């Protein structure tokens, strides 16, 4: 079954590449705007040989990773505090519902005003966008604590901190993982957007340069790179999730006893 799926996956990808090669070659689309897959691949090879490309990739990943780390830590701490302190959750609910839907890109002018085209601008946008993803999941996760588990912990005299550490946190962890995985994807989108629009160093900025210099195959090559990045990030996040949640029903499946 697994083998069949892998074969089908490879076949699908090959078919897509063949299509991307054929469509411009057959003149269905102007080659100016959509170069054949082969030329994009060649451009990708050229990019890989250029040290500036790797610097740009490094910059993007730095913005992504730092932003995600800050947003995750802040989201987790804020989520736990909001849930543990009585009344705080209710008091903040409306504010959160108001702030959360604000699109991060709407903050681009603010970021430029505050930090110009530095890394900090990128971070502001990335953190804002991904923070909510984590926070909302943590809030849901914390609510999921089993009353019996909680009473068990209380009956054995576990204090607030011990209950957070041994009951609340493990219960919320599956939600946190989902939140961080979603945040990782959003963070990449925002990192590239910020570079593209603000001109902070990174892949986005390089895409902008390719656009202004009419380097269409390079443009596509860079887009492919961002897509691959997203793929790697998602696969990585899922792998981490599976390891950390080996005990969880969603991962362990049904156990025969």
């Amino acid at each position, binding site marked *: 079954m697994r083998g069949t799926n892998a074969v089908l996956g490879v076949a699908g990808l090959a078919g897509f590449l063949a299509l991307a090669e054929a469509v411009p070659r057959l003149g269905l689309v102007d080659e100016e705007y959509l170069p054949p897959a082969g030329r994009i691949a060649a451009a990708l090879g050229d990019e890989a040989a250029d040290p500036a490309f790797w610097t740009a990739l490094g910059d993007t990943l730095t913005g992504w990773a730092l932003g995600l780390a800050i947003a995750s830590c802040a989201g987790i701490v804020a989520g736990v505090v909001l849930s543990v302190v009585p009344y705080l959750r209710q008091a903040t609910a409306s504010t959160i519902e108001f702030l959360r839907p604000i699109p991060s890109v709407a903050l681009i002018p603010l970021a430029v005003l505050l930090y110009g085209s530095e890394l900090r601008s990128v971070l502001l946008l990335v953190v804002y966008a991904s923070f909510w993803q984590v926070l909302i999941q943590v809030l849901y996760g914390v609510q999921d604590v089993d009353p019996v588990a909680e*009473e*068990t912990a*209380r009956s054995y005299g576990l204090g607030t901190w*011990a209950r957070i550490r041994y009951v609340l946190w493990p219960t919320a962890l599956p939600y946190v993982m989902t939140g961080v995985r979603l945040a990782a994807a959003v963070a990449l989108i925002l990192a590239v957007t910020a570079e593209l629009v603000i001109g902070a160093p990174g892949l986005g900025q390089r895409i902008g340069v390719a656009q202004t210099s009419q380097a269409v195959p390079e443009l596509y090559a860079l887009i492919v790179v961002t897509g691959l990045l997203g793929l790697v990030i998602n696969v990585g996040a899922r792998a981490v999730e599976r390891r950390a949640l080996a005990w969880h029903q969603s991962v362990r499946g049904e156990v025969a006893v």
Partner: protein
Amino acid sequence: MLDVRGLRKVYEGSGRRVEAVRDLTFTVDPGDLVCLVGPSGCGKTTLLKCMAGLLEPTGGEVLLEGRRVDGPPPGTAFVFQEYGRSLFPWMRVGENVELPLRQKDMSKAERRALVRDALESVGLADAAGAYPWQLSGGMQQRVAIARALAYEPRVLLMDEPFAAVDAQTRADLEDLVRGLWRQRGITILFVTHDIDEAVYLGERVIVLSASPTVVREQLTVDLPAERDQLHTRVDPRFAGLRTRVYEQIQAAKRGEVRDALTKSSTPPPR
């Protein structure tokens, strides 16, 4: 050891007011094994949770060794009916048993020794490395009992612990609890809806009325200390006690009122 005086618990919420426990007074002597039976929904769990300091009573008080219970007392362990939810699936069996001990001032070696000893006494010495969900229901409840034992409580409160396991496992677990009680001299208060179980296990049986709950009757179980599933259950004395409890429960269900002050039909042991 345990004094319940005029305990009353009223739940209030969403316009409804439910008086779960009206007026309960009884005592449990040190080293006793008391079974509480009552018709279903009669507030047995409420009572036990008040005694464990998990619920705040509306009126009256619970005294443990003369001191008023106003939070989970350190000398008390609680075994829940829902073992699957009471054990933490993210911890291995050994870690589950060890967790309550982390609050206590003891070395790692001491903790390990207690965990090993507790798991051995419930017959699960080699399950320490497994996760609870890899074990059968009966084994999971054994783990929960081991966790309680490792905590070295003076009082063990058990809330219908065997209601969710099959009959054979249940018989084994009953013998286990009786055996542990005799070995360790813990005071046990065991809540059940099963009349046979109450008579088989207990040294004393307290029959509760239907909700709003009062004590309906207290019986001393004058069966030999050495009990086994095969002989005790066919003992005429067992049948007699069982019938007595059964009648009381049926009467409680019909809502018959006995004299307001409960009298012991058999004199309390002294």
